[in-house]
């Protein structure tokens, strides 16, 4: 009943405005691809990379005269890797564990031998798993075997989604394995008991920190050493203390260039320089100041007081590397799925 609708000049102008706004949005995302690097990282490295990026930008400008912008994206390591696979154009990834980068390599975005490209398994800084407890350690938690006592509430994130949580899990497993008379069955029992004491599994390390620190849930928080230091310094030295267990795992968060993206954007040279900068004394000092254990002996010596000596085992020696540990323990239907039953 109503004949054709003809656009008036008003409407046309309005439509044009909308279209040009959309075009502008597209253009804006294209322009930003000049001399910028995108570093896709995991949750607890926010403060670390803020400091590191500032230092590298300065260093790079001194050396080349080029002004550089480094963009950061943070989130759970697993979901960050997923985003890169789905097309988040990261020039470099700096994730919580090698398996997440392996997953990106599997899709052909970077070379499979990436871990050999930089010294120290491409992990310029390390960390370990420690316990954060409430001030005065009211439950008297000293070591891993105190965690399985009845009535202890443990906070740790979900190993399916959080890199840090996988390190927690493997550290507990390795501890049980290395006790006198320890074997796979005993380790499995031990880890089962630990997860029986976990009232809530957050999806990421930062979420768990908030649960323990802000919401006040739990007696002990299994945490990255760096995250534990940060929580204490940000939120109250008078409220928490760190307990270092007798044995823990050497957590190696690796870094690498995403070949496909860097080549496409023409940023390979600066991306590689960015990661190599980690191995300089200045950058190692930044790592130490942000509570990550440095690799360089001279910087280590300077911060010996901050990082107590812990007996550390590596994932390679106990579990045969991530390529083995991941499918055995954390895959769908793996050991974790078999032993974990949500708290009633």
């Amino acid at each position, binding site marked *: 009943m*109503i*004949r054709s*609708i003809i656009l008036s000049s008003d409407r046309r102008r309005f439509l044009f405005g909308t279209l040009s706004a959309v075009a502008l949005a597209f253009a804006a995302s294209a322009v930003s691809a000049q001399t910028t690097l995108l570093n896709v990282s995991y949750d607890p490295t*926010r*403060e670390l990379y803020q400091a590191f990026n500032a230092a590298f930008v300065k260093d790079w400008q001194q050396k080349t005269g080029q002004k550089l912008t480094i*963009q950061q994206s943070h989130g759970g390591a697993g979901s960050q890797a997923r985003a890169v696979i789905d097309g988040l154009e990261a020039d470099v990834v700096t994730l919580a564990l090698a398996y997440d980068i392996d997953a990106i390599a599997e899709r052909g975005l970077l070379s499979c031998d990436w871990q050999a490209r930089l010294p120290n398994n491409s992990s310029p800084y390390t960390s370990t798993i420690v316990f954060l407890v409430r001030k005065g350690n009211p439950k008297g938690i000293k070591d891993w075997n105190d965690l399985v006592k009845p009535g202890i509430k443990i906070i740790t994130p979900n190993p399916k989604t959080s890199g840090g949580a996988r390190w927690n899990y493997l550290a507990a497993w390795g501890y049980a394995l290395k006790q006198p008379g320890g074997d796979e069955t005993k380790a499995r029992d031990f880890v089962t008991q630990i997860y029986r004491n976990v009232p809530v599994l957050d999806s990421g390390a930062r979420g768990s920190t908030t649960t323990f620190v802000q919401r006040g849930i739990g007696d002990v928080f299994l945490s990255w050493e760096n995250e534990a230091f940060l929580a204490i310094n940000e939120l109250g030295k008078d409220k928490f203390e760190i307990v270092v267990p007798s044995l823990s795992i050497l957590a190696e968060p690796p870094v690498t260039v995403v070949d496909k993206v860097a080549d496409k954007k023409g940023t390979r040279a600066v991306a590689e320089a960015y990661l190599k900068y980690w191995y300089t004394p200045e950058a190692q000092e930044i790592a130490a100041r942000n509570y990550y254990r440095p690799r360089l002996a001279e910087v280590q010596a300077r911060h010996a007081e901050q990082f107590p000596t812990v007996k550390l085992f590596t994932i390679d020696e106990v579990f045969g590397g991530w390529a083995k540990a991941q499918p055995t323990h954390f895959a769908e239907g793996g050991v974790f799925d078999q032993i974990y039953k949500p708290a009633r």
Partner: protein
Amino acid sequence: MLVEAQTSDMLLPIPVAAARPQAALAPREESPAVRLALTAVALAFLGLFIVLPLVVVFSEALQKGAAFYFSAFAEPAATAAIRLTLLTAAIAVPVNLVFGVTAAWAITKFEFRGKSFLITLIDLPFSVSPVISGLVFVLLFGLQGWLGPWLAENDIKIVFAVPGIVLATIFVTFPFVARELIPLMQEQGTAEEEAAIVLGASGWQTFWRVTLPNIKWGLLYGVLLCNARAMGEFGAVSVVSGHIRGLTNTMPLHIEILYNEYNFAAAFAVASLLALLALVTLVAKSLLELRLDRRKP
């Protein structure tokens, strides 16, 4: 104490009512105790779930003083987030305005097959979780998705960039305008339009002179709600954003980041800005409702 004072105020009309003949009022009258209890429950509920959180947001935001409060907005990442939120709303709201009006117009003024299916489709974004809405775009435009490889070849970025955020927001806010207009236009019927056509008006004239004036307040109301959601959307946008600081973070995402960085005062400062938007929307909404009521005979 405050609650009590308010309730007794509200009960003032009771003596007047009680003076009237009992028989006429009996079916409508509850005992004063029940009325008092109901009012108290309603007010307590309102206070606990609406007023208290609002107070918390503003008091947390201002806990480090006004200077810190305003410096939270001056930070480049915050200004970028505010700008992106405004840009997203500036695109999503007009697009949905045009879509909502045309869809409501087609649905209420014409008869055609598949009409109820179209209405169901319009409602889809309401019934689907925002996370799914976001994932759909990743599955479509992501590197592993259907169109991803082609987009990558042609260097067009959709997900993890501004276009993806805009698309996800348009999707999520898509039903607001249409949903607001359809009942209104159904109620009004087609008589006035038919009269206009008979008198020789063109389709465009009919729309502009007859239909639009009839629906303008309802339309504004829909736009307001659409805008509020466009600025506040978290889930869908979070999935497609990529969380690049200063580039693809909207205000809600920026708030989460600040909170996770132990920067509580700044997080609540930005949150208070969003809360302010909600308050402005509420006031505007009440004013509009007043207008709408007054227009009715």
